[in-house]
């Protein structure tokens, strides 16, 4: 893709990611948040956090499968938007549910398993958001940066567990996200196994032809 085209596509992806937030604001403005506004807002933000986590995980497989390497240029933005929605989601818990009663919050996070899992998912995203800049990639070095950013696998699993544990009986959506995450992680395992089985195709491990 040409540079200009990528820049424009970035604007579009940015607006797409921001769209749900603007939609939520619109519904707030219109007092159209159902009889239980907090539940609506909290679920809406949680839904978009997990959706964007799945999209972020899908970037690498999609760029290979669709032969669209330029997709990588949108991954950071989508990941940061996932973090943005997850933070707002957490804020609804801290503010609307708990009224910033940190004594209660500190007891609640370890006590209720689904809250523990959600919290773990969010905490694992913090180092990724902090080191998402080009400067940090340079400082850490590509390889170490990549290792660190595998924490997103943990986030995705914890987010699915969080969702699965919190639903009352209708497990269709947590199962759907669980399946998507399982497929996307299986892709990683698959490529790793393939790379290991054929070490010579990997240029880094290839032995010099003449010793």
């Amino acid at each position, binding site marked *: 893709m040409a540079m200009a085209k990528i820049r424009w596509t970035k604007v579009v992806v940015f607006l797409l990611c921001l769209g749900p937030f603007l939609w939520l604001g619109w519904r707030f403005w219109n007092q159209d948040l159902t009889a239980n506004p907090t*539940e609506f807002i909290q679920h809406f933000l949680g839904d978009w956090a997990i959706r964007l986590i799945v999209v972020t995980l899908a970037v690498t497989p999609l760029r290979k499968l669709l032969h669209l390497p330029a997709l990588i240029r949108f991954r950071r933005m989508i990941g940061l938007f996932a973090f943005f929605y997850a933070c707002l989601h957490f804020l609804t818990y801290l503010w609307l549910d708990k009224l910033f009663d940190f004594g209660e919050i500190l007891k609640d996070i370890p006590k209720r398993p689904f809250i523990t899992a959600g919290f773990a998912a969010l905490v694992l995203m913090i180092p990724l958001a902090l080191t998402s800049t080009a400067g940090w990639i340079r400082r850490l070095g590509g390889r170490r940066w990549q290792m660190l950013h595998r924490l997103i696998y943990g986030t995705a699993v914890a987010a699915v567990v969080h969702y699965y544990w919190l639903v009352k009986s209708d497990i269709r959506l947590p199962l759907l996200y669980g399946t998507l995450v399982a497929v996307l992680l299986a892709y990683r395992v698959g490529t790793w196994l393939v790379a290991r089985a054929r070490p010579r195709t990997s240029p880094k491990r290839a032995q010099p032809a003449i010793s």
Partner: protein
Amino acid sequence: MLIKKPEDIRYSEVTPKSIYLNRRRFLAGIPAAFLAGRELLSPSARALAGSKLPALVKSPLSTTEAQNSYNDVTRYNNFYEFGTQKDQPAKYAQKFKTDPWTVSVEGEVAKPRKFTMDEILKLSPIEERIYRHRCVEAWSIVVPWAGYSLSTLLKQVEPTSKAKYVAFESYWDLKQMPMARPEIAGIKFPYVEGLRLDEAMHPLALLCVGMYGETLPPQDGAPVRMVVPWKYGFKSIKSIVKIKLVASEPPTTWKMSVPEWYGFYSNVNPNVNPVRWNQKTERRLPSFFQNHPTQIFNGYGDQVASLYAGMDLKKLY
């Protein structure tokens, strides 16, 4: 106050003060300019009306707390037969056929019989009962129900000495309720609930045929449901077709589904917190904040606590 309005004003035409108050409270910190004009908008005219009930008898059991709007109570429902999302029953229950309707009252009784809806409506004067309604999901509302004590109906069939519990069953029909399948909703159907006989005979236990002065809309459990205000909302079974008096504790839907979260009694209790829920406080809708302290027995302790004398409510939750 709402109840002092002339008879012919529909509940939906006035927005209870509480809604304004709550909105003001929440929005206090937000620039006033942003809000200009918004509060002038009252809830839109309602599309989901039932038919008007004859003049209701006022009840001393009613609360004077601010009521929720008709809109809130008819567009936000847990009624898994019509979908597991809160906005689904209002959409998918509209064609629910509730006429003709009969309720079979049977089991350990001297005179088992079927009641038509007409008979139920005429059995006793219909009272207005304004109750607090507390969901296990830690939100609560105040609703002006219409009906009479279940005991009135039960006395008609003369429970025998073997009757110790009352088992209720909801209507179930996949043709009208295509989502009422375990693979979809994750619970078994038909929905079943139960009370101990002394609970069922308590005057507060309401056999409910209406709300806001009208018959029940389908998504709220038409044509006849229970309202047991000191228990979590799921105990108040909807669209009842069978009431059976039995000798031992009957199975109940949510307890069968996740016994760690839901007990047979499920009395509202801020001191019983199975891991899924935090019941110490609740959100009095439409407030945004979960800052309303939960009262034991949902504030009906003076009337019902004696039913549970000597019971360990932490074990028998």
